[in-house]
Structure formats: structure tokens, C-alpha cells
């Protein structure tokens, strides 16, 4: 019933502050949540923002906030719509003394906010999505495509395929199909895949799928004819289960399909039923209800009846944990900022950016947070706003995701050159003078 109440609230555009139990008060660190709990992408949005809120609640309840500064938040429903996202950002950016940072979980909305956040001095954090070349922090000081970008992911996928093939040299003459959502998101990794095809000598075929991707008969007949050794599935929403079902229909083995991390949640495989068994996807976060931090959140937050997910079976799901990771990044960046600017004080957006620029989530720190295995170690600097690039791979066994690889590192050297080139081009177009990171404190 509470879920119904919440969705109703979303439907009528009401703020969900009451439902989350968060209240704005002086001396609290405010985090605006540009969430989406209704509409076509509500499944991912509700899991992610549920995890994000659960972690902030956990920090408030267990530690009394960050050095005594409690976190507060307010949700605004974007429905994954760019104009609604901008509207929500404008509405919330000055609430609660000012936004600490914004994480819209939408590449489209993040593109729309790039110029605005620079003007407003509010960091934009895009974990695993958004503009890849924003990893160059000298050109994009306010944007943090943290942990890993689309280009790193493409590199990680090729490296994983190399391990399965028995080495990079074994890819020569092989056929790889990139089956992608025909959008900016789906096209983003193409330059990296093309560079690899040239370097490693495999034959790359690009097959786009028109939005929303609920009909892929023609694409899979093409794949059946090509007989590729591997298919990279770069899908979104209904495109993913449809692809897996269509693959089964033409008899293509799912063990040879490698998805990206937006094709690697429970919501992507459960609708496909048995057709998803054996399918592997990339991940930059762990999942599972038995992870220590998830257990702790369950005990502290859900035990007190303050958990955000109505469907308790989703606790520890891929999207839920991804939201927890975003919560960790938020809290730790504020903590780093406080250590520099004054413990127990509310940080401004500018100070939080400093915290993000100096965020070093080492294995030891992640262990202290009970988050080892939950995300890869990440070290952000002024120049490098990605900070990691690591991804690992998980296979769906019909019931749950099983991790089948360690953290795989992308070809940083190749990608960095591409990122700098693209960022410099952007700086030239926009008349931006890149900041000198050697002079940043």
C-alpha cells in the first residue's frame, strides 16, 4: 500500500520528502534527488534511488550523519525526461542551503546539466554513464563520470573476451557484433571498439536497434547469418530481455553474449526467463543480499521500518547496490571536504567538488565501510575524474548473478589519449581554458 502511496505522490508531482522521512533543517547537508519512479524506466530508477536513500538513512541513523552533519534530501520526479530533469534541478539546486551534488542517473539529463552545474558550482556525478570525455577534469571541473566510463567499459568487455578466447592474439579473424540501442548511449563505445578491431584484427559488425527495441527479429536473423563468435549487447530497458529471447529463438548461445552494465540487472534478465541463462554482463558494483553493507542496511534501516524499497526481494539487487555505491561516493566526498574545510560543517557545492577531486576510496577504506567487493577502489584526481575504470563480469544462472571474473582494468593509455583529444576539442568549441591541475590545492 505504501508503494501505491509513493507512486501516487510521484504521479501528482509531489515531493517525496514525507515518504523518505527526510526533513529539511538548518545545518543539514542537502542532496537533491532527480529520481524517476514512474514511467518507462521506473524499474531502474526506483531500485537505484531506493539504494541511494537507504545509504544516506544508514549514515544518519548509524553515525548521526557525517561528523554530526545529518544528510537531508528531496526527490523530484523526472520520468527520465530531459526537460523535467532540468526543471527538477532548477527547483532543488538552492534548497536546504544549496545542493551538495547532483546524480541524475540519466545520460540525457546529465548532458543537459553540464553547462548549468558549472555556472551554479554544483558537482555533477555520473557513475557509469554520461559524457566519457568529462573524465578529463581539467576541461570538465564540475563533472565526475566516476568509477568507470562507457569507453572503459568497452575496453573491459574486449579484455574479458580476450580472456575467454585464450589471449588477445586469438581474436584475430574472429567476428564480433556490437548490437546497440540506436542512441547516443549505444553509439558511445563505437570509437573504442573500432580502435580495438583495428588493433586486434577482429571483424566488427555494428547492428543498431531502433528505440525501444521491443522487436529485434531482423537483427537476430542478421546475426544468425553472420555467425559471430561474440555479441556485445549494449541495450537499455526492454531491448535487453527482447535480445535474449530473440537470441534463443534463432539458436544463438547466450554464453557468447556479453552485455554492458545497463544490460546487467535483474530487470534485464528476469523478463527473459530461461532464455537469459548463461548470459554474462559487465558490472561496476557487486550485488546480493548477503553483502556485509547490504546486511547492515537491512538491519539498521529496514529494521527500523525506514527502508525505501517496498519490495524487500529487491534489497541487494544490482540497481539497489548501485544506488548504495552512489550514496558512498556522496558521503565520502563530503567527508573528505569536511576534513579539509572543517569537520562538522555543512559543505558548499564548491567544497564538495574539492572533496570529489581528492576522493581516494582505497581497498582499506572500502573495507572500513563494509563495502569491499561492493565497488572497485577509486582514486579521483583533478585530472582524472574517472578514478578507476575497473569492471568485472557476472553471469546469470537463472536465479542470481554470479561473479565470474576479478576486476578488469581497461587500456588506460589508449583511452586517456582519446579522452584528452575529445575533451580538448570540446574546450576549443566552447572557448574553455582548461584549468591547471598542478595549481589546484
Amino acid at each position, binding site marked *: 500500500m505504501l*508503494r*501505491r502511496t509513493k*507512486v*501516487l505522490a510521484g*504521479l501528482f508531482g509531489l515531493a517525496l520528502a514525507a515518504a523518505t522521512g527526510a526533513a529539511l533543517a538548518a545545518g543539514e547537508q542537502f542532496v537533491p534527488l532527480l529520481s524517476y*519512479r*514512474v*514511467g*518507462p*524506466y*521506473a*524499474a531502474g*530508477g*526506483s531500485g537505484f534511488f531506493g539504494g541511494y536513500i537507504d545509504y544516506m538513512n544508514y549514515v544518519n541513523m548509524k553515525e548521526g550523519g557525517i561528523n554530526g552533519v545529518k544528510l537531508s534530501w528531496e526527490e523530484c520526479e523526472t520520468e527520465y525526461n530531459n526537460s523535467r530533469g532540468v526543471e527538477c534541478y532548477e527547483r532543488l539546486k538552492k534548497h536546504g542551503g544549496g545542493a551538495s551534488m547532483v546524480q541524475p542517473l540519466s545520460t540525457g539529463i546529465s548532458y543537459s546539466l553540464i553547462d548549468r552545474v558549472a555556472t551554479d558550482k554544483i558537482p555533477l556525478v555520473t557513475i557509469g554513464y554520461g559524457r566519457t570525455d568529462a573524465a578529463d577534469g581539467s576541461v570538465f571541473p564540475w563533472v565526475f563520470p566516476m568509477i568507470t566510463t562507457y569507453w572503459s567499459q568497452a575496453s573491459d568487455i574486449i579484455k574479458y573476451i580476450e580472456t575467454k578466447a585464450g589471449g588477445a592474439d586469438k581474436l584475430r579473424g574472429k567476428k564480433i557484433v556490437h548490437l546497440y540501442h*540506436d542512441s547516443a548511449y549505444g553509439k558511445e563505445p563505437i570509437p573504442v571498439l573500432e580502435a580495438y578491431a583495428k588493433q586486434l584484427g577482429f571483424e566488427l559488425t*555494428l*547492428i*543498431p*536497434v*531502433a*528505440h*525501444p527495441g*521491443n*522487436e529485434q*527479429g*531482423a*537483427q537476430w*536473423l*542478421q546475426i*544468425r*547469418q553472420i555467425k559471430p563468435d561474440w555479441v556485445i549487447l549494449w541495450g537499455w*530497458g*526492454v531491448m535487453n*530481455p*527482447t535480445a535474449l*529471447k530473440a537470441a*534463443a*529463438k*534463432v*539458436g544463438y548461445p547466450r554464453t557468447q553474449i556479453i552485455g554492458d552494465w545497463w544490460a546487467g540487472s535483474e*530487470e534485464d534478465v*528476469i*523478463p*527473459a*526467463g530461461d*532464455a537469459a541463462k548463461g548470459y554474462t554482463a559487465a558490472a561496476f558494483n557487486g550485488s546480493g543480499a548477503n553483502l556485509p553493507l547490504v546486511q547492515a542496511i537491512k538491519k539498521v534501516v529496514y529494521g527500523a521500518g525506514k527502508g525505501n524499497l*517496498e*519490495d524487500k526481494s*529487491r534489497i541487494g539487487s544490482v540497481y539497489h547496490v548501485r544506488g548504495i555505491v552512489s550514496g558512498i561516493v556522496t558521503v565520502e566526498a563530503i567527508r573528505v571536504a569536511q576534513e579539509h574545510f572543517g569537520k562538522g560543517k555543512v559543505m558548499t557545492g564548491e567544497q564538495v567538488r574539492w572533496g570529489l577531486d581528492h576522493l581516494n576510496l582505497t581497498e582499506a577504506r572500502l573495507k572500513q565501510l563494509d563495502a569491499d567487493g561492493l565497488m572497485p577502489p577509486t582514486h579521483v584526481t583533478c585530472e582524472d575524474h574517472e578514478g578507476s575504470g575497473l569492471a568485472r563480469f557476472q553471469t546469470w544462472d537463472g536465479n542470481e548473478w554470479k561473479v565470474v571474473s576479478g576486476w578488469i582494468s581497461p587500456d588506460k593509455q589508449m583511452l586517456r589519449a582519446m579522452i584528452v583529444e575529445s575533451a580538448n576539442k570540446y574546450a576549443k568549441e566552447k572557448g574553455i581554458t582548461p584549468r591547471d591541475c598542478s595549481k589546484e590545492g
Partner: protein
Amino acid sequence: MSFFFEVLVAGLLSGVMYALVALGFVLIFKASGVFNFAQGAMVFFAAATFAGLQQEHHLSVWLALPLALVAMVVLGLVIERVVLRPLVNQPQITLFMATIGLAFFIEGMSQMFWGSTPRGLSIGIEDQPFQWVSDRLNINISQFDVFAAFVSGILVVLLALFFQRTRIGRALRAVADDHQAALSVGIPLQYIWAIVWAVAGFVALVAGMLWGARNGVGFSLTFTALKALPVLILGGFESIPGAIVGGLIIGASEKVAEVYLGPHVGGGIEGWFAYVIALAFLLVRPEGLFGEKHIDRV
């Protein structure tokens, strides 16, 4: 050649799935002259209700199916009572706008009742090729698609009989021609509309179950309406056989275009290619292949 034949057959069978959704539009249009923008949302609500009753309330398929049907009939009756009845004799554009509002309401209501998480749905028919056809002809023909074609065929026959051979069916056609004239000869408009919306709910349930079994039950089912639009333009908004023939033409041509033309123009063309075909037909035959030709006296 066998590959071309496989593409063609796959396209024809996909077209039947589009036609299933198009049938719901045709029903409403035939009876009220209204293009029901909410048909995709009805498909979603129907499938979500059926899957939700099974998975959330652990009901057997034999209990979930009639209950979902009851829900769709009730929805149809409520729409008639609350939305359409107050709009009798209003311009058709007003009724069309009302269905736009209805679409958003039904989408929100579905997520409110059944949550936003997509569900799997099995109706016991595997989406796998017939092995003996694959072995002998090297052509994959999906068992599921053939089943869907069979179901569509039965639906078309039943609906055609309903419209042509029953009193209610004839009354429906009279109402579609002219609300006021139908009322003046004693045809109960509200009763007729309630029936047709209930039948459209039933068709939405069938379409939702088949599309849901194919791709999963989630919000994306509302997008199936996009696939039905070119079918309607081509087949005619008022023709039940037109929905099927339109579906077959659209399905086959978009698949053939995607496979043979797509690679030369960057791919991903089937989404808009169907509309190109529909537009071409529209220019030559505005009422569609099977639509009624309107002759206006001037």
C-alpha cells in the same frame, strides 16, 4: 533464397503480433469513431494484472485469467461511465484528447497497483523454432509466433462474426456512422460503448499476454501501440481483416527492409520504415486498404 524466405516468414509472423494490438484500436474506432490513444496502456494494464495476480497473489492461470478479464471489463465500463458518457455528441477531437489523458492515467494506475519492476510471463508456448522445419529446410519458424498467428486468426473470425452477424454488432456500426442518428432510432449509445470498450479490453488482454510472454511484462508494453499505428493507416481504421492484412504487410516489409536495405543506410530503420510504407499508402488510398471510402456531398 532460404534466408530471404526466413526473413519474410519472420516478418509476417511479427506482423500478426502488431495486428493483435491494432485490433483493439479498430474496435473502438468502429464503434465510436474515436482513435483510442490509450490502447497501448490498456495492453500494459491487462498484462500487468494477469502477471501480477499470478506472481504477486500466487493465483493459478485459470483463476488469474478470468479475474484479469473482469478487471478489463470493469475498466471498460468505468471509462464509458466516467469519460465517454459526459462527452456524447462532442467533437471527435475532444474524445481523442480524452483518450490521451486516459492513457497516462492507465499507465500510472498500472504501476501504482503492480509496481514498476518488469516480470517474466510464460503461457506455456516456447519461443523456439520448430526443430523439424529447421532440420529439413534450414529455416527457423517460431512455435510461439505460429501460436500467436493462430490466436489472431480466431480473434478476427470471432470479431468479424460479432460485427456482421449479431444485433449488437450492427448497432455498433450504426453508432459509428452517426451518434445522433443511432440515438434517434433507439440504439442505446452508452450500452453499445460499454460493450465495445469491454471487448477492446479483452483484445488488450490477449495482446498483452502474448507480447508479455515474448518480451516480459513492463511499461514497454505501452510502446506496442507504436507498432500498431502504421498497421492501422495501411489496413484502415475500421476494418478487422484490414488490421491483419496491414500487419502482415508492415511486418514483412519492415523486416525485409531492415535486413536488406538497413546495412546500406546505417541500420536501425525498421522503426520508421513501417511509417514510410504507411504514408505511401496514405497518399494513394487515404482510407487504407480496407477502410470505408467516404463520399461527401458538396
